[in-house]
């Protein structure tokens, strides 16, 4: 988890019906968080969908996405090594807490059980492994979702307003936890948000989008 990665957004321009929605040209270094801020409808989510590999064919995109120099623009989503953190924790309802983490682990990981126990202990959820995710509190779910993302060993992370559904108190905690974790893991991250405080907590460069 301590490898160092770089995410390069090389002259990316996404358009819908010939009208440019968003243009960005930037590089995100290891452990760095690049924040893209803007009101809803400014094309933030479109950018995330493009980077993750889910862009609807209705859009026209130009430019290249590179991860550690490798061009991943044309790869399918599951082969991009890019992890995604959503607004909601989205824990699989049919799996236990440990099952959710195991689902994230790459197939050939040695000693999965120990990795999972350790990950749970790190976020104060030791012994929660066999629990039904539905019985967890909002903050606990968010922490499990974060650990699932980290265990899947991505090379870069996209954050889609991950704190917007949490209450104020929890939001502070989660921001600290998420950003320190991403920094420690040396992961380049791209955060989209409309909340100025998110950007401040991320502490990296901020790109503001207009309407």
């Amino acid at each position, binding site marked *: 988890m301590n490898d160092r990665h770089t995410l390069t957004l090389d002259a990316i321009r996404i358009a819908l019906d010939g009208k440019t929605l968003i243009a960005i040209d930037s590089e995100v270094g290891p452990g760095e968080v690049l924040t893209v801020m803007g009101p809803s409808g400014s094309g933030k989510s479109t950018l995330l969908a493009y980077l993750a590999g889910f862009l609807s064919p209705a859009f026209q995109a130009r430019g290249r996405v590179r991860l550690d120099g490798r061009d991943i623009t044309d790869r399918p989503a*599951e082969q991009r090594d890019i*992890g995604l953190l959503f607004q909601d924790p989205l824990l699989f*309802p049919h799996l236990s807490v440990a099952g959710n983490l195991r*689902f994230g682990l*790459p197939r050939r990981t040695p000693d999965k059980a120990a990795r999972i126990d350790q990950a749970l202990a790190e976020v104060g959820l030791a012994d929660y492994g066999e629990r*039904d995710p539905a019985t967890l509190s909002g903050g606990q779910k968010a922490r499990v979702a974060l650990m699932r*993302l980290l265990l*899947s060993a*991505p090379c870069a992370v*996209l954050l889609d307003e991950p704190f917007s559904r949490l209450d104020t108190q929890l939001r502070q905690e989660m921001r600290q936890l998420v950003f320190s974790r991403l920094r420690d893991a040396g992961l380049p991250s791209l955060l989209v948000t409309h909340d100025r405080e998110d950007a401040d907590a991320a502490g990296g460069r901020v790109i503001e989008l207009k309407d």
Partner: protein
Amino acid sequence: MLRLVPALIVTLLVGPILAGVAMVLLPAFGYLPALGGDTLTLAPWRELLAQPGLARSVGVSFASGLVTTVVSLAVVLLFLAGASGTRLDHWLRRLVSPLLSLPHAAAAFGLAFLIAPSGLAARWLSPGLTGWERPPDLLIVQDPWGLSLMAGLIIKEIPFLLLMSLAALPQLEAPRRVAMARSLGYRPALAWLKAVAPALYPLIRLPVYAVIAFASSVVDVAMILGPSLPPTLAVSILTWFNDPDLSRRFLASAGAVLQLGVTLAALATWWGLECGVRRLGRRWVEGGQRRCGEVPLRLAGKGALLVATLTAGLGLVGLAFYSVAGFWRFPDALPASLTLTHWTRALPTLGGPVATTLVIAASATLLALVLALAALENEQRSGRHPAEGRLASALTLLYLPLIVPQIAFLFGLVVLLETLGLRARLALVILGHLLFVLPYVFLSLAEAYRRFDPRWDQLTLTLGRSRNATFWRVRLPILLAPMLTAAAVGLAVSIGQYLPTQLLGAGRITTVTTEAVSLAAGANRRVIGVWALVQASLPLLGFVIALGVPRLLWAKRRDLQGAP
């Protein structure tokens, strides 16, 4: 592979229908070389027109198509307008699925046992109210006007249209529309009828057409409840087709083409009615009348649905009574003695047909489920929305087997298969059932599949899992409950099929349904009671599994407990 599935489905559904209709059209004009018909001629039509009582047959078929639909639709709309979340409303809604799964034949037998001159109703009212000491000499069941036939169909079509409406309603934000209209001073039921019903109707139009087509051409219900001299057109056609004198098949073919015309005429008439109602309805909606008739409207809807549900329920009670009745003198309300002999006597003969029924139903449902899942998954992967052009038309094609009368293409198909020398009867019956099972399975699964949050897929992919892992390890487990419900619907549809089993199985494949319907002529009520009850309980098995398995499997997963 996956990309070919929609084409495969369309071929599976449309191919047999087109081939069947073609093989009915040719013999209808005298062309069927296997039976010595080498030239085109109008002789079959002359023979058809010379059949005694043809006009009456056609009239009853046409009328039952329209009357059944008008009454069922009116009851459903009035009930939905008047439903206000009372306990009775919830209870009635809950009964919809089991009632829908009740096979047509069992419902028809239940009704027959209830309203027959010596039936349950007459016994319970006699001699106190009626003064009857002996069963009256009245032709109630199988009346020449087809009224009991229509009643039997209405009992079954109400749950169908109600379920289709309940499935379509969430798109309409009905509570907001009603709230809006009420804030303008409209009483609740009128608010619903004026602000929701006009938007709901276009969404349930295809199911309504399916009801018209079904009611104007049904065979099994008409054999049980319909008039007998002359029977409805569809029943006459079947008689001609089964005639040992093979030359009557030309006559049967002409009849089938006529049936197609009768159903089309009923649909066209309905379409004309639609236009008229639209014009008058608009004037009524815009008329601004806010209160007039509120209470009667509300009571009518509730009352009618209650009567229909009770009738079906009492019919089943009647079946149960007869199946265990010993000596039962008229007008005693209850049998003088109860006995299990009818059951013990039927038991040895029940096993085979029950097994056959289940094998056919399970195979057809499994095939339908695989095809429906493949088509829906393909839709997701190709990112094509169901509303966009091509798939919308493919969806319309799904209704084709439900709108073209069974009798009009099935025996054309039989003729074709005979010509080709195909004799794998069980396989043919299964494929025949698939024609009718697939649309229902697809329609009941599509809603849940398309509504599935796309972020689950995205999440799984960004965790580095493949598309296939997404399908097998995320979608299927989370959608287990709706999948099993769709399967239960498929089983129920298959178990209730009469004509495809009878025709494609060449009368040699016996299911509980073919056996029960064939007993209709014999009229031993106690034996019929046994078979009809067995037929009615088999589909319930599917629904018990569909409700029970997710609860057992996901006993420790709270978010999947209340899954739709």
